């Protein structure tokens, strides 16, 4: 990390690390005890660690290259490592809580290990830890390559990666201690939310500043998607997390929203987290790594642009489909439903554009597991967006809502689409970062691919069955007007599906562990700096 920084940059880094340590100390001292104090100590620890790291190498030799001619890949590499660490934490906890649903007696007698606290560790660990780090790391790579410009400065990317991971660590450790503001996918408390705003604004500015320095006349479509991801997530995060802290020295807060408005804001946030965190950003990833890996041009430029605006425009409306048949007014439900149906068109256009791009490269899809990851990702993207629009139709939702069908739908998106495209990107990127021709073990990629596909299919099919079974059992009345099944019977009926889901998840986790090992083996003894094309020299003003 410090070897890639110049002396003035190291000084700035040192200064920021001291600030972070002081902020941590102040938080810990002001809160005195409880979650916020522990989080203060975590920030203090990170700050002090960085002080020692940077201070210890302050006067080491400066980086050798003429740096503006080189891309800055060290933050990408660090971010990818964290991606894999979070993958194993998030998926590991996921498999564990899936097993707890099948063997509830296995719950250990400590509050920190109860299902309710571990479940958000899984969701945050996967969405923000695994997905977020992958997005940040690949966005730095894609941004530089498609702009032919080095990142605007060398400090901000580290602030973004380290600060973002401090947020994730705060969130996850907070849940274990029972600290949550009880908003799904936005459980972290107010000070962590504020911290994320600072980090996110840094990220957005860095992205814009680098784009402004580009040596290409046009902005490639992947950057549009990444930018939409960064900008809209900022908007969603800020609005949904508006809250008044009980005291400035405790973690607890009250949201400013209440009643059905709160529910609507939460699901406007929740569904657009799916749209802009788990879709837009990953479409950016797809639009870069799929053509790079397949060596094929994007099938239709026009389709990619229209899909972009279609997705950004339609998605913002659809959050209310999470609140069908609730206190939310009927008219808002109708709008959510109809926009969800229209959303299918740009979604399928994107999936179709990706698959049509592979025309002329199908032999590569057959032979190259990395490209196959991306192909499967595009297929699952198409499947889960169809499913999403279908489930948003009100009468369909009356069957599927509150059942495991929703869980199956989410995982067909996250396992089949998001994780697959991440693995495809990782297997393309890691050899390049390590200056190698290919991954250390191509066979392990093949194994990973089949483990991931099998695991996803088992998981998703089990949850479809589980959800439809639950939905049908809950709504069944006998001819005498009495419920045909008790709730307990519907729980008992889930046993085989919950076992299958655990097995599917475990297969997927095994694949991710193989991937982490393979990446480590590839990056070990790697040469510094990627071997791809040098930058076009800066044109004279």
């Amino acid at each position: 990390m410090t070897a890639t920084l110049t002396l003035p940059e190291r000084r700035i880094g040192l200064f920021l690390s001291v600030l972070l340590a002081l902020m941590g100390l102040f938080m810990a001292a002001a809160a005195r005890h409880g979650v916020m104090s522990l989080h203060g100590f975590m920030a203090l620890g990170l700050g002090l660690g960085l002080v020692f790291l940077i201070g210890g190498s302050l006067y080491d030799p400066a980086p050798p290259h003429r740096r503006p001619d080189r891309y800055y890949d060290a933050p990408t590499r660090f971010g990818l490592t964290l991606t894999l660490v979070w993958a194993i934490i998030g998926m590991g906890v996921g498999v564990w809580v899936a097993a707890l649903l099948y063997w509830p007696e296995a719950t250990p007698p400590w509050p920190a290990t109860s299902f309710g606290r571990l479940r958000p560790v899984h969701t945050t660990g996967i969405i923000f830890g695994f997905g977020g780090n992958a997005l940040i790391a690949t966005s730095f790579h894609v941004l530089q390559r498609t702009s032919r410009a080095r990142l605007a400065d060398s400090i901000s990317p580290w602030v973004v990666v380290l600060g973002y991971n401090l947020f994730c660590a705060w969130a996850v450790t907070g849940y274990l201690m029972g600290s949550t503001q009880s908003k799904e996918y936005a459980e972290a408390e107010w000070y962590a939310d504020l911290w994320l705003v600072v980090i996110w604004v840094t990220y957005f500015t860095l992205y814009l500043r680098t784009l402004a320095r580009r040596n290409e006349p046009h902005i490639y479509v992947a950057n549009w998607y990444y930018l939409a991801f960064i900008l809209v997530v900022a908007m969603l995060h800020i609005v949904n997390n508006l809250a008044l802290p009980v005291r400035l020295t405790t973690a607890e807060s009250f949201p400013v929203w209440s009643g059905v408005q709160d529910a609507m804001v939460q699901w406007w946030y929740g569904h657009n987290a799916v749209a802009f965190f788990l879709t837009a950003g990953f479409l950016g990833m797809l639009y870069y790594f799929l053509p790079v890996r397949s060596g094929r041009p994007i099938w239709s430029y026009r389709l990619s642009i229209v899909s972009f605006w279609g997705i950004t425009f339609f998605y913002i409306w659809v959050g209310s489909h999470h609140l069908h048949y609730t206190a939310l007014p009927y008219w808002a439900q109708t709008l959510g439903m109809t926009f969800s149906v229209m959303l299918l068109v740009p979604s399928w256009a994107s999936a179709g554009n990706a698959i049509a791009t592979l025309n002329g490269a199908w032999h590569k899809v057959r032979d190259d597991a990395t490209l196959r990851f991306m192909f499967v990702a595009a297929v699952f993207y198409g499947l889960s967006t169809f499913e999403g629009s279908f489930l948003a139709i009100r009468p369909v939702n009356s069957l599927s809502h509150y059942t495991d069908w929703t869980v199956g739908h989410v995982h067909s998106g996250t396992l089949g689409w998001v994780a697959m495209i991440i693995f495809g990107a990782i297997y393309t990127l890691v050899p390049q970062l390590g200056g190698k021709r290919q991954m250390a073990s191509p066979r392990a990629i093949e194994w990973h691919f089949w483990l991931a596909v099998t695991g996803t299919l088992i998981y998703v099919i089990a949850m479809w069955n589980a959800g439809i079974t639950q939905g049908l059992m809950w709504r069944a009345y006998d001819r005498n007007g009495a419920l045909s099944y008790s709730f307990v019977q519907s729980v008992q009926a889930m046993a085989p599906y919950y076992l299958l889901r655990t097995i599917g998840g475990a297969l997927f986790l095994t694949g991710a562990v193989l991937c982490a090992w393979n990446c480590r083996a590839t990056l070990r003894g790697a040469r510094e700096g990627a071997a791809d094309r040098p930058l076009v020299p800066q044109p004279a003003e």
Partner: protein
Amino acid sequence: MTAPHHREVDPVTGHDTTGHDWNGIRELNTPFPRLVIWALVLAFLYSVIAWVLLPAWPTGRDYTRGLLGLDQRAEAAEGFRALSGRRQDWLSRFGGADFAALTADKALMATAMPAAARLYADNCAACHGTRGQGGPGFPVLSDGTWLWSGDPDEIATTIRHGINADDPDTRYAEMPAFDWIERPDRIALSRFVADLPGGAADFETPAGGLFTENCATCHGDTGAGGLSVGAPSLTDTATLYGQDPETVMETLRHGRAGLMPAWSGRLSGAEINLLALYVTQLGQGSGGRP
């Protein structure tokens, strides 16, 4: 947007590219597919139809009501009314509490008992077990032994008002703590109580004396209970918390006051009577015990 000198035809698709190159990535100038336009038009048509028929667009303080005039509250209320109408045909018979007459009506019981089983599973099974098998602190309902009574009337009272519950007519039962008894005496007493079911307990011992002095008021002179104060029989093998010396020691030290919630706010009178009958049959069904 494509300058003519950039013209570069892709051999696979026959389309030319847009002329840009981003780190090796190019894009084809494929015309916008008609299929997508038609799909957009269709999806939009679907939406317009839905907007015309259903409540859809807000108009300041009001919203467009839709030609179908649907209202989700009215729909939900109508659904509940239809279902409860089907239930009232037979459930209303349970409004009166002539349990003997109800039990005698075989056709009625054939209709009602499956519904009662679901009612039990949804409301009672969490504590008393799916088959009435109970658990530590939660009485077994299937063994034919009762704390208060096995009579459906009495069971209905328990369900309606609960035990130690937040209800003015709740049943009240508390085992006080006997922590003031010296520890050696408590040990002797707990061994004595543990020996009661086997008939090995000797009332002529000091421990037997302690029992007569302190316990017999509620549990009866012989420990057989049955005094309608909710004090369990200590002579049968049924237990609530456990009758081994260690558990009895704990009971003596801290006392016990189990809670059964009152269900009158949640279940109708007819449903409570139905459940009372179901629980009565659950106790008889086990056989084995009188």
